[in-house]
C-alpha cells in the first residue's frame, strides 16, 4: 500500500486513491459511492494547497516515492471533484454509454 509523506499522514486512510494512471483513477471513481468520495474529498481538498507547496520543493520528475504518491492522490482529488462539486453522482450526467479512454498521458 502506498505511503504518503509524514506531514500528510492524516490522508493515509485514503492512500488507495494513490493511483498512477488515469484509467485507474476513473475506474475507482465509477466504482465508488458518493459517501466514499465525499469523505475523500472532505479530507483531501483542504490539504490541496499544502500538498502543492510540499511537492514544489522537489523537481517534477525527481519526486521521492512518498511525494509521488501524494501527487497521484491529488490527481484523484481532481477526478472526484466533478462528482462531489458538480454532478452529485459518480458518472457524468447524460453521458450514458459514451466512454473515452486516455491513450497518452504524461509520464509523471
Amino acid at each position, binding site marked *: 500500500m502506498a505511503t504518503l509523506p509524514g506531514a500528510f499522514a492524516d490522508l493515509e486512510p485514503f492512500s488507495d486513491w494513490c493511483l498512477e494512471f488515469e484509467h485507474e483513477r476513473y475506474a475507482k471513481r465509477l466504482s465508488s459511492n458518493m459517501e466514499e468520495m465525499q469523505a475523500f474529498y472532505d479530507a483531501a*481538498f483542504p490539504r*490541496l*494547497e499544502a500538498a*502543492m507547496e510540499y*511537492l*514544489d520543493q*522537489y*523537481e*517534477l520528475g525527481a*519526486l521521492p516515492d512518498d511525494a509521488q504518491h501524494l*501527487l497521484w492522490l*491529488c*490527481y484523484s*482529488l*481532481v*477526478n472526484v*471533484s*466533478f462528482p462531489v*462539486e*458538480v*454532478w452529485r453522482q459518480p458518472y*457524468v*450526467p*447524460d*453521458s*450514458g*454509454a*459514451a*466512454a*473515452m*479512454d*486516455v*491513450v*497518452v*498521458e*504524461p509520464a*509523471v
Partner: protein
Amino acid sequence: MPHFPKPAEGSWTEHYPYLGTGPVTYEDSISPEHYELERKAIFGRTWLNVGRVEQLPRVGSYFTRELDVARTSVVVVRSADDQVRAFYNMCRHRGNKLVWQDYPAEETSGACRQFTCKYHGWRYNLEGDLTFVQQEPEFFDLDKADYGLAPVRVETWEGFIFVNLDATDTTPLRDYLGELAKGLEGYPFDQMTQVFKYRAEVGANWKLFIDAFTEFYHAPILHAKQATSAESQKLSQVGYEALAYEIDGPHGMVSSWGGMSPPKDLDMVKPIERVLRSGLFGPWDRPIEIDLPPSVNPARSPVWGIDSFLFFPNFMLLVWAPNWYLTYHYWPTSYNTHIFEGTLYFVPPRNSRERLQQELAAVTFKEYALQDGNTLEATQTMLESRAVTQFPLGDQEILLRLLHHTAREYVADYQRQQSGALAPVGATS
C-alpha cells in the same frame, strides 16, 4: 441586438452567399452510399493530419496509423537522412502488414533501425528500400530495387504531419491548408509538448461530431450543470455569439470570447478551480508570452478566449488564450461510426502545481466531451429515422453549413470526374 459586430450583409452566413440560409438535410450523414463516395472523394484525395513531428524524435522513430476509411494502414518514420517519410504498411512480398505489435489492427509506435516483416523476414531500410530477402536465390529474376515499400505522400506544416493517399494530386500541403493556416504560422506549437490524448468510439457520422465542436450555441445549455448555478443561468439568458467567423475554401474558423481564465468573479467557478487556478479554459497563469499570429483572434478582441479551426476534412485545431492548444480528429469507420481523438498540448510543467493545473484542464475536457459524444449517438439514430428531413441552422451554426456543403461538393466533383472518365467507355460500347 448583437453583442459583437457582424458583417455588412447582416449575418455571417450571408457574407458567404453560396452557403445559403435555408433549411439543410443531413442525408450526407445517414446514407451508407454517400459514405462510400466520401471515402474516395474526400479521404482518398485530401491531406490528412496523422500526427506531429515530436512523435518522431530521432532517426528510426516510427508510428503507424490505421486509416479504416481508406481500408489501409500507413507507417510514418524519421529516415536516416532525417526526413519524415510515409509508406503503406505492407510487405512487398505477400502483402503482410509490415509493422504491428500483438494485434495487427492496432496502431503502434517505437524506434527501429529497419523494418522486418514478421512473416518471411524481408527487411526494408528507413527509406523504404528492400535490403534483404530471405533465401533470395529461390526467387526468379528478383531485383530488390523493384520492391521497395510503396510510398505515401507526406508533408509537414508547423510540425503537423499530413499524408495524402492520392498519388496524382500535386497540391502542396501548405497551399491546400490555405490562408487560415498561413496566418497560424509562427505559433509556438513546438514548445507545447506535454500531451494528454483521449480516444473514443462514437456511434455517429464523423461530420455530426465536428458539427458539435464548430458551434458553441449549445454550450450554455448542454453544459449548464458544469458551471455554478448563478453563472449557468446568466449564460443561458445571454446565449452565445462568436467574435468572428472566417472561411477560406473548405476550411473555416470560429473565434470566441471566454472569460474563465481567470474568471472575473471567483464565485463563477468550482472550488477546485479556485485552488488550482485552472479549468476548462486551461491554467489561468500563462506559461509563456506569445505574439499571436494574424489568424488567431482576428477581431483582436480583448475578451478573446479560444479559436477553433476546422481544416477539412477531419482535423480541428483549437488555440486557447492561456497559451495551450488542442486538436480533434474524427476518423470514420462506417457511415454512422467514427473514432474521435482529442489531444491536449501544454508547455511542459515546471513543477507539481503546474502539472496539477494541467490535470484539471484535461479531466474537465473529458467531462465535457463525454456529454457531447453521448448526445451525438442519439442524434444519429433520430436522423436515420428520416421522420424529419429538413432542419434550420442559425447564424452561429455557419460552420455546419460549410462542412456539409463542402462534403457534398467533394462527392459531386468526384462523381462528375468519374462519369467523365467513364464516358468514352460508354461511347464505344
